[in-house]
């Protein structure tokens, strides 16, 4: 359990808590129905996307800026993080989300709160249809995250933060019509806890988690497989302390989880 003694680990967990708190605060806040000027679907989608994009930019180098239990599970399936780290990240994300929603609830006028933008089925979509849509929404996000943060790529990544943020915007442009767009169990849990509305809540866990796992399997084992041995993967999952032999691997592994450099890279150069 060397990770527990690491300051960087504690900072990473705190970063996940803070990032998810801010994400939920701004995201749900942008979706509230103000009587004077109700937000459009496009506005809400851009707000959620920019929220993620900016937080990835701000905290990506600290914790990887997952901000989403589904993304953390995807990284676990891809053998990029240890079980311990994944568990702490998810706990921090769920707590951060609820904290963000609670703060938003308290500072918003009573008549504006409504259901605090809780996720629910819309337009007569069935639960099966909603799960399928959530699956696709989250799959594309996870694929984009892995592609944007893959340290093995020598080509121009552009701005990973922007790409990931816009991927979230894309999901919302479609998902809002079906479910209010979750893509993120923490985002769905937060308003549900604060308002007590858990109708069809399971949809927003099953859909994103299955989508994330499929996305992770697709990218890490099919589309752009890495050459890690089984032993190496198990070592990552157990969170074994890297010895001197694994110095280089440790660096590569950390980079694959956390953004090494969100700025554009000169063409052809390796990160």
């Amino acid at each position, binding site marked *: 359990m060397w990770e527990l003694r690491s300051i960087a680990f504690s900072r990473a967990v705190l970063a996940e808590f803070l990032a998810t708190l801010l994400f939920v605060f701004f995201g749900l806040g942008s979706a509230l129905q103000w009587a004077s000027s109700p937000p459009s679907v*496009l506005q809400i989608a851009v707000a959620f996307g920019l929220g993620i994009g900016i937080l990835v930019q701000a905290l990506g180098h600290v914790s990887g800026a997952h901000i989403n239990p589904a993304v953390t599970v995807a990284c676990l399936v891809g053998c990029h993080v240890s079980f311990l780290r994944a568990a702490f990240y998810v706990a921090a994300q769920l707590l951060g989300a609820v904290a963000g929603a609670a703060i938003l609830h308290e500072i918003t006028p009573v008549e504006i709160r409504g259901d605090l933008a809780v996720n629910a089925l819309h*337009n007569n979509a069935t639960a099966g249809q909603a799960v399928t849509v959530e699956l696709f929404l989250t799959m594309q996000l996870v694929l984009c995250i892995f592609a944007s943060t893959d340290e093995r790529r020598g080509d121009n990544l*552009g701005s990973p933060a922007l790409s990931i943020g816009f991927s979230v915007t894309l999901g919302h442009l479609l998902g809002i*019509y*079906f479910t209010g767009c979750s893509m993120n169990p923490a985002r769905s849990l937060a308003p549900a806890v604060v308002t007590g509305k858990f109708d069809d809540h399971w949809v927003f866990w099953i859909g994103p988690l299955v989508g994330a796992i499929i996305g992770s399997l697709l990218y890490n084992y*099919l*589309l752009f497989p890495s050459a890690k041995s089984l032993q190496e993967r198990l070592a990552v999952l157990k969170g074994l302390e890297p010895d001197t032999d694994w110095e280089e691997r440790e660096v590569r592994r950390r980079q694959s989880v956390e953004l090494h450099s969100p700025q*554009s890279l000169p063409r052809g150069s390796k990160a």
Partner: protein
Amino acid sequence: MWELRSASFWRAIFAEFFATLFYVFFGLGSSLRWAPGPLHVLQVALAFGLALATLVQTVGHISGAHVNPAVTFAFLVGSQMSLLRAFCYIAAQLLGAVAGAAVLYSVTPPAVRGNLALNTLHAGVSVGQATTVEIFLTLQFVLCIFATYDERRNGRMGSVALAVGFSLTLGHLFGMYYTGAGMNPARSFAPAILTRNFSNHWVYWVGPIIGGGLGSLLYDFLLFPRLKSVSERLSILKGARPSDSNGQPEGTGEPVELKTQAL
């Protein structure tokens, strides 16, 4: 036919299928009539653009992320990929598009499906005018793709994915009023198959393909020409195996892919 035995070739084909499936699913899905009243053009244009940006980011390094038969045709005209690869890409794109539309059809409530965002000419727009519009839409799009994918450029180019995505958004912001903005035969083909409505469908093949071909000729032969001999071009088109004098291992990147994957 060495390409058929290459794992990276099949991964690229699968990536094109998968990417086009997602593109059609998200693009058409965001174009459906979810609420009464006129369609929000900016919102739909951004959805298509961001869908492509995300997919370029996601599979650009695997297959080049064409996601569009017109783009694949453009690369073929520019002698940047083999005939075999181009054919397989286009087949994968068409299948992926139909699959994406089918999934969207099955998850969408019947009241909202409508014509599944089928491309149609706006009232009063003639087929000649529509074809011309489609040519221009795809021409600017292909020019942007060729410029951003060009591995000969050495400066910091910002985000390739976003440049390509926003180029598509631009096309939709203008083209949606005239033709619904095809710019992509696979995108137009998918809802046509599912709704069995092929009125003026040829416009969405002829326009983009001509536009793509023109864009390729303009960039590769006029604006920023590549100095390749005819024999070099022919060997690429035939899919000749690149000389591995440096003993480069299989699957770590062939020159053909590098040319289309120089993101």
